[in-house]
């Protein structure tokens, strides 16, 4: 369940890819490209779309193959390059994504989409202001659903939920298809959820399901919200459907945690085994899963030293807010609390319940119990369900 925070990033990446692929198709230059290159690009982008829909990572491999073939025929095909940049972002290879996006920007500085993909990479690399500038360039060139979605994510990252709602409202207004609308409803629900307005959040997620029945991302979000409200049975039911409908180690991890909380060990073990299998499949298909695996292990007390090594490697690749959070948690769990402070500081630039909790653990570890108490309380006030495992731990620490 602790993968929840990372999940937000992953979902954002998925949504970004989604919107990106949409954009790429729309502008597809089929009228003038040689048919084979055009078909390869189209096939490559369709594979990414399938990946987005199902989560199944083998589509990434197929997408890359098609796009690279297209680029062999025409190394400057901007759609193939943008598709590849987005694919690298999806695989968490943000430096590579950024490099490709820069190349497209050189070839086509007036194409709105490239600035969006570039901003996605910059933000994941922790270069927020540069990322925001890219997003604003995208909007200036062409305000669209994809651009409004990114503005919404940026505002929510900055803690401006009201502004994020307005941006999502613009995206929702522009959307005429069920999936985009469902996506926007889920994002709106996540904002409610972050404000602990669980009932409002659940209504949004239900709205998403009403327009796109069985939309797994809404089912997962609903499962988490139900858990936060203490409705564990219905949480498990939603989460199980999400896991059945979509390949996602995050969803499977959440299902395992919920089962663990209610004492159903066998079901929890099955779900955790699925997490492991799926992480392996992701890695086989070129997805960088180091931070996610590190976080999962740290949450569940598995191989703490190995997790620290994983977290360091993940941090080297994408030193964004999530990497700072995971690395600080890994250091804490390995008793290296002083070293964790600077990473924790950076993670707390965008605070949430879990990050306050980490800070509390650091303070305690450094012998500053009063500060630790204050931060345990702050973590729980920010999000009483920041983690099914560690939220109850935090509650037990209160004096």
């Amino acid at each position, binding site marked *: 369940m602790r993968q929840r925070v990372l999940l937000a990033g992953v979902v954002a990446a998925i949504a970004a890819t989604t919107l990106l692929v949409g954009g790429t198709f729309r*502008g597809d230059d089929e009228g*003038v490209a040689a048919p084979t290159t055009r078909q390869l690009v189209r096939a490559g982008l369709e594979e990414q779309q399938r990946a987005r829909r199902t989560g199944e990572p083998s589509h990434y491999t197929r997408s890359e193959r098609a796009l690279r073939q297209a680029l062999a025929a025409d190394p400057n095909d901007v759609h193939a390059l943008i598709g590849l940049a987005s694919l690298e972002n999806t695989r968490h290879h943000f430096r590579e994504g950024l490099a490709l996006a820069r190349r497209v920007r050189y070839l086509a500085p007036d194409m709105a989409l490239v600035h969006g993909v570039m901003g996605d990479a910059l933000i994941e690399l922790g270069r927020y202001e540069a990322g925001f500038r890219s997003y604003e360039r995208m*909007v200036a060139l*062409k*305000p669209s659903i994809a651009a409004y979605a990114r503005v919404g994510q940026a505002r929510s990252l900055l803690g401006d939920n009201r502004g994020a709602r*307005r941006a999502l409202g*613009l995206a929702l207004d*522009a959307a005429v298809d069920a999936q985009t*609308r469902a996506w926007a409803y889920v994002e709106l629900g996540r904002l409610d959820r972050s404000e602990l307005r669980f009932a409002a959040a659940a209504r949004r997620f239900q709205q998403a399901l009403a327009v796109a029945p069985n939309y797994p991302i809404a089912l997962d979000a609903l499962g988490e919200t139900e858990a936060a409200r203490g409705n564990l049975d219905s949480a498990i039911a939603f989460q199980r459907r999400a896991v059945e409908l979509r390949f996602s180690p995050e969803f499977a991890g959440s299902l395992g945690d919920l089962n663990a909380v209610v004492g159903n060990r066998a079901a929890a073990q099955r779900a955790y085994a699925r997490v492991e299998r799926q992480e392996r499949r992701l890695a086989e298909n070129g997805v960088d899963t180091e931070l996610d695996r590190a976080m999962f292990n740290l949450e569940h007390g598995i191989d703490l030293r190995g997790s620290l090594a994983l977290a360091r490697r993940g941090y080297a690749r994408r030193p964004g807010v999530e990497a700072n959070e995971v690395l600080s948690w890994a250091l804490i769990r390995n008793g290296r609390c002083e070293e964790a402070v600077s990473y924790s500081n950076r993670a707390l630039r965008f605070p949430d319940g879990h990050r306050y909790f980490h800070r509390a653990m650091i303070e305690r570890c450094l012998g500053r119990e009063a500060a630790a108490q204050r931060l345990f309380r702050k973590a729980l006030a920010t999000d009483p369900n920041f983690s099914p495992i560690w939220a109850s731990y935090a509650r037990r620490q209160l004096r």
Partner: protein
Amino acid sequence: MRTLIIAICGVAVAAAVLVLKGPSPEAGQASSHREAPLIAEDPSADTTDLYAFRSVDAPNSLTVIANWIPAEDPAAAPNWYRFSERARYSIKLDRNGDAKPDVTYRLRFKNREDTLFLGNTVQDYTVTRAAHGDEKVVARGVTPPNNIGPRSSPNYRQLAENAVTNLAGGGKVFAGQREDAFFADIGAIFDLVAIRKGVGNEGGGKDFFAAYAVHGIALQIPISQLDDSDHTVGVWATTERPRVKIRQYRRHGVRRFHEERQWVQVSRLGNPLINEVIIPTRLKDKWNSLSPDKDAQFEQYYREPILAAVINQLYGLGVPEKNRDDLVAVLLTGVPGLNSTGPKLADMLRVNLSIPPTATPNRLGVFGGDTAGFPNGRRLEDDVVDIAERAVAGKLKGHPAGDLLGDGVDGNDVPNLAEFPYENDPPSGFANAKGQQKP
């Protein structure tokens, strides 16, 4: 060889049409576009077709029709096909050849409720006319609901008729769901197998836009409000969306948002297929954001169309690649003696208001000897795919390929209406029948 020529040009032009229209309905089904519908990025902003003509029943008016939201599946339920509330939709007219708007009709839409679970697709709208630096609301209208079926939206013809609204000062307006009058065989052409009956101009194609709907805006404007000594007006349609910034700004201590303070034009349409066939990918966003009076910078792409070069490179047909004055004239200045607006290069649909309408239109327009049709304006029955294929193949330069080409779909699957708003009622979701075979 003939089939091959048709196939090649067909692929190129019709594939472009596919892009123009968004995913073809068939392609959509193949990749399950209800599940993964984000293929078309911004269908509520991207203009798909623009028509401008004098009609037989209202010869003293200019009728302008523009469409948005391609490939609306009438059976999609629940259904949210609506104009965007946060966009501005405009029809612009240039009277003096400078390619700047002299008269603009701008529409803003408002939803009746914030959720659509009950399928309320009725929208209220206002029409603002801007001319001579003056802005005035000239109509407040209501769209009919989308055509769900006989129980939800009974007697649709009547509903649509009731939705026609008069403009203050003369003329009328309609906005709402319509049958897509555009016709083309996307599926066959896209498949490289090309034409179903082997020869492009014998019919037998399958209209992939049959039984799909669009959202249309139709205006009928008295010619007396538009005409001048040259008699020719330029017409184009645009969509704008608000630019926003990430951070709010403060003014007098109040937090504000950067919304609806600055509009960015995200789509424009004058002549058909320009965005798709002529403008290179990397410049499409920029081209869409500009007014036609800035079009001189794109001249090279008309004069040396990438499409002609690609056709020749692949198949060696000898289609003229350079010095395409013919395309520049048809698309950027108008044809002398027909609908020229002077030397200013601009992509506008040009209509000579002094040419009367005909009761027996030829689908090939001017190519078929009928000066009341495309490229003198564009009527619903003008076969622009065939015309475009022939034009690019050098029809106006006397190239032999210029008479052969076509996609085998020569007309719309349902008759257009004889009166305003001319595009027929949308097919109902209940009587859903998509992609009908032509006889």
